[in-house]
């Protein structure tokens, strides 16, 4: 979370660490006559749906073992051990069973309602929902460096753009920026947030997949390539900071995200922007059905535009979410029919 430190300091606002502190900070920014976050309720601005995965997965941690039924023999989930989820994933048939049991049904499962309430609280406190309905995702970057908004959620790849753009502004418009990790919900926000804290790097599941059933020769090539890409030497090159841009002369002393690959060191002399903290995580919180872009787009509309934009209430959005997810899962069952274990579904659903 990038923020305008000059503005925060001038108004005595501290960088938040918890969700409630974040909401309070947003109201303080609004009280000071500024806009906390300029967002676009469209598919091309991740600021409003990015946290869904982080907060949603956090809220659902206690349900992981109930959903991941097709797990490896002897597998257990340990939130304090990120490696406990390696090799495990939620399949479409598991999601279908969990949905029909109500564990992943937004109209039934309490975690979805808690998240919907928090998201609305955030939209009201931190954004201008009406402007967000008309805005476009390609405007949100500029809104931050020109001072239109005071907080901007993005990846560390945004640093070089931000530094360059700020350097191009007249001196009186420049400001000191800094970052805070995405604020974490706590048990103040609900008992569902009792297992650890938010996983700001999402999880260790971002990465590379070699599909099952590849030709052995192709599989060997794929694995060889992945070993090369994740080797210490090559992976370190991906952290391209701690350098001087030859064209502009601007220095970049910061590191990108702390390396996620075990054994990859930070470059000498780099400064970590935040400590890396990981929890065991599974992608459980189903905004939409796996591999189904239609239910994802529908979610962006009814949750983002209609609900966060103030057109429908929480009961309606949870009903819509439930319908859309059910339809999407049915489509995904058809799309991935070759991988679906019908016997598993029949055995788990009466």
């Amino acid at each position: 979370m990038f923020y305008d430190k000059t503005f925060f300091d001038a108004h005595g606002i501290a960088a938040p660490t918890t969700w409630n502190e974040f909401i309070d900070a947003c109201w303080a920014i609004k009280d000071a006559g500024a806009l906390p976050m300029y967002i676009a309720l469209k598919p091309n601005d991740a600021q409003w749906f990015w946290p869904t995965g982080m907060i949603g997965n956090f809220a659902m941690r206690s349900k992981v073992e109930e959903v991941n039924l097709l797990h490896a023999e002897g597998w257990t989930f340990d939130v304090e051990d990120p490696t406990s989820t390696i090799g495990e994933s939620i399949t479409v048939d598991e999601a279908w069973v969990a949905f029909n049991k109500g564990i992943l049904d937004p109209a039934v499962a309490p975690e979805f309602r808690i998240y919907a309430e928090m998201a609305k609280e955030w939209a009201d406190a931190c954004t201008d929902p009406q402007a967000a309905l008309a805005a476009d995702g390609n405007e949100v970057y500029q809104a931050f460096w020109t001072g239109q908004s005071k907080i901007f959620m993005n990846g560390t790849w945004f640093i070089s753009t931000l530094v360059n753009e700020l350097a191009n502004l007249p001196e009186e418009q420049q400001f000191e920026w800094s970052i805070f990790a995405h604020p974490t919900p706590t048990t103040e926000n609900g008992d569902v947030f009792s297992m650890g804290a938010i996983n700001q790097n999402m999880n260790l599941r971002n990465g590379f997949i070699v599909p099952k059933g590849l030709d052995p020769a192709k599989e060997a090539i794929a694995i060889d390539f992945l070993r090369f890409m994740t080797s210490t030497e090559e992976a370190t090159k991906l952290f391209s900071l701690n350098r001087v841009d030859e064209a502009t002369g601007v220095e970049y002393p910061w590191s990108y995200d702390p390396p996620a690959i075990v054994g990859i060191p930070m470059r000498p002399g780099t400064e970590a922007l935040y400590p890396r903290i990981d929890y065991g995580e599974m992608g459980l919180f189903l905004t939409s059905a796996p591999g189904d872009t239609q239910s994802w787009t529908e979610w962006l509309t009814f949750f983002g535009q209609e609900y966060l934009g103030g057109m429908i209430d929480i009961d309606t959005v949870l009903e819509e979410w439930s319908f859309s997810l059910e339809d999407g899962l049915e489509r995904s069952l058809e799309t991935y029919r070759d991988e679906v274990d019908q016997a598993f579904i029949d055995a788990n659903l009466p």
Partner: protein
Amino acid sequence: MATLSRPVADAPPMPSNRRNLLQRIWDAKFVYLILVPTFVLLVIFAYYPFVNALYRSLYDWNGVNVSNYVGMENFATLLSLKFATVDPKTDEVTGEPLRDEAGNLVYEDIRRVMRNNEEEFEDFKAYTSIQIGDRQYHLVAKDPVFIRSMGNMLVFVVADVAKAILIPILLAVMLYHLWSHRWRYIFRIMLILPAVVPGVVYILLWRDFFKMPSGNQQAGLVNQLLGLIDPNLMHTWLGDVNTVIPALIFTGFPWVNGANTLILLAGLLSIPGELYDAVRMDGAGAWTTFRRLELPMLRGPIRLVLVFALIGAVQGYTGILIMTNGGPANASMVPGLWLYQNAFQFNRYGYASAIGVILFIILITFTVASQRMLRSEVEYEG
């Protein structure tokens, strides 16, 4: 054409009409040969995709591994509409209607009503509703976004046709009656110059014009002007489901269409001077001259402009994609954009093909109707 025909001495006997036709084709073989590549490319890149789309519209096809024949199901989904009525909830004991704290009648949510009557309303979703007396009447559809997009399309067809004809006619007539030929020429250049500005730039500018002040950013031009009259008139025009369509129609104001104006001006320039002399001798004023002479003589160019405007309004979605992406909440969705989203975002190529087929039928209906209008009218020869 006579230069292309010559008698062939040893041609076998055959019926004279047929022989003449084949003979003419043979004589003009090089012309036909030259046309072959054009038609081959046309068949490959225009007719084949079209025929394939017709075929694919009968399938549930995701473009990859799912391709199930579904017959007319895609069309049935697109066009399925039903009415549902919802009465107020009543107290189970007294049978009296229930009321909320504000005294309003309480109704079951239509989504829940449909869920509880799954046999009748399977796959249906809420579209719109009205209340008459104590009863709610809901229109539900299997694809309410498509139904909404068709309604929006009709609005845009009317608006776009009006914009494409009315202002250009006015401009063309004013230009035509300019005394100074030099100024007429200058104005023609000025009219066509904006056409060289890339359309995307134009659309992005208008998107900014509608902005509200936000943070340290000023309002867009439209809201700035409205703010001068009354700050309460400023509004998030593109972010409100009630104002997004009027705002999109207003886009481009004053709707000066240089190309259409020049087409209509060319039509005016082709009217023989004798006809103007005749109406002048009859004592006609400017309005009568326009209504009785110029408008009838412009029917041809008007129909041309009309057909282009219709096609653009039915098929077009680029501007809406950039300005609102069909939002908010699908309020500005049009069929072209829904087709695009189904194909390229949802991978529902079969379903998208069905939307394309429906658009094709609408367009062909418009085209045939306009052709019939053309045939039914008296043509004036210059």
